[in-house]
């Protein structure tokens, strides 16, 4: 009976051997995705701001570094971090940390360009206006350009996070017991239900990604609505003032 077999294995797929052992399955996938999402957003912001501020050779070096991370497959970077990190740090790095590191680096590289594009999209007029008000370059970026840029690049962040959730499945290669790894395990144990198991696992990922996408877009659209209504309000007292002049 495939259905009862699936239902029996569902808790294992969702949590792994959790109450009696380490966390695994879909819960570990969420943990992996969350930690690498936060790290990649952080790296992306730094990288994007650096791209916007640097000129000359520093800019080229930065572009090449980001280009490197964008050009190699996630899997290849996981191999690199998996073998290099223990060598560099001289400690035993768990597979989980190497995967988070790889995902954060790749996500950060993509987001750097998104942040940079956002800063460009805000336009030079804004930063020039800020500079002419006497703000320093850093202040102009922090208080004038970035708040506007974040709104423009928010969809890119959501996109990147959704693909991060999907990319956590690659942790399977280095033996991290997340959802895909457990799916493979359950599949090899049961032998006869690969279709049902992989469809179920795909459905779990589908729910995770779609929920993330939907919630983020809802939040964003509400935020955008509020910011447009906010913008119209300060205009009201200014308009009569111009008339009196």
């Amino acid at each position: 009976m495939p259905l009862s077999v699936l239902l029996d294995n569902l808790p294992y797929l969702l949590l792994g051997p959790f109450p009696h052992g380490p966390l695994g399955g879909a819960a570990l996938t969420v943990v992996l995705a969350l930690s690498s999402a936060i790290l990649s957003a952080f790296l992306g912001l730094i990288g994007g701001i650096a791209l916007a501020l640097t000129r000359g050779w520093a800019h080229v070096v930065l572009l090449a570094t980001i280009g490197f991370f964008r050009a190699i497959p996630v899997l290849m970077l996981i191999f690199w971090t998996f073998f290099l990190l223990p060598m560099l740090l001289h400690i035993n790095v768990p597979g989980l940390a190497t995967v988070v590191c790889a995902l954060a680096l790749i996500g950060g590289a993509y987001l750097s360009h998104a942040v940079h594009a956002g800063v460009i999209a805000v336009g030079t007029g804004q930063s020039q206006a800020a500079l002419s008000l006497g703000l320093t370059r850093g202040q102009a970026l922090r208080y004038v350009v970035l708040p506007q840029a974040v709104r423009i690049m928010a969809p890119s962040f959501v996109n990147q996070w959704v693909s991060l959730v999907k990319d956590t499945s690659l942790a399977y290669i280095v033996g991290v017991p997340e959802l895909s790894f457990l799916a493979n395990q359950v599949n090899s144990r049961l032998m006869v239900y690969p279709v049902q198991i992989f469809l179920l696992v795909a459905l779990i990922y589908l729910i995770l990604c779609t929920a993330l996408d939907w919630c983020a877009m809802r939040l964003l659209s509400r935020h955008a609505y509020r910011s447009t209504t906010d913008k119209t309000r300060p205009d009201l007292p200014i308009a009569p003032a111009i008339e009196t002049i």
Partner: protein
Amino acid sequence: MSTARASLVAPGPRFFLLFLSDGSGERLACTQIPAVVVARFRYHPGARSHGCAVGDRARPGVGDDAPCALVLAASYVLVFRNSPLLVQLLFWYFGVATLLPETAMTWLNAAHTLSIGPVTLGWPSFEFVAGWFGLTCYSTAFIGEEFRAGLRGVPGGQYHAAAALGLGPFTAMRYVILPQALRIALPPLFGQYMNIVKNSSLTMAIGLAELSYASRQVDTETFKTFQAFGAATVLYIATIALIEVALAVFQHRGARMSHRS
């Protein structure tokens, strides 16, 4: 006809914008065959979902697609884009083997050859077929979306102009809309082809002996980790760079041709 062609707008800065706003900005890479197949299939989701998903009510000639085709295309894109490629590959590899009838599986696993003159093509392993099929299905969703974005980028006036010249919906699509949409969609499309190259590394999970798999094997056999992964990394970067160069050549040629007309 010539008027319609002359009215094609050089995409100019939109290229750049699309490239930047292409959220994922992903530019990755795979084996050549999926790319070719995808190029053939990519029109489907894009063209089908165009009418409704886009919601361009102002455009005559398009947007009258049956809603059922739209729902189909949209759910295809949703399912294939929002589940990991790895799980899809495992499904095609392990799952399909049990779904297909016995005779089909023996045919897929048996050796076939196709001789065209001096060239003899051997039938690939089942791992290859599953990987190729999975990669194609996955990439189709992304490439279809890029085409949709390209079609959306064509100004509404072009549809009206084509209709005013007496072109039917299909002729207008073929000679007026698609050439422009293609030019707009070119950079993100190449980004997707790079993605296919990079995603091809996942087929090692189903035992296909591609670059990543080979590098891992070299590593376990010789313990020369740096050299093994270094060589594979360089090869991946070289492939991506090659696609980047191809894009630059295409764009340059496209710009020159639009100047001439």
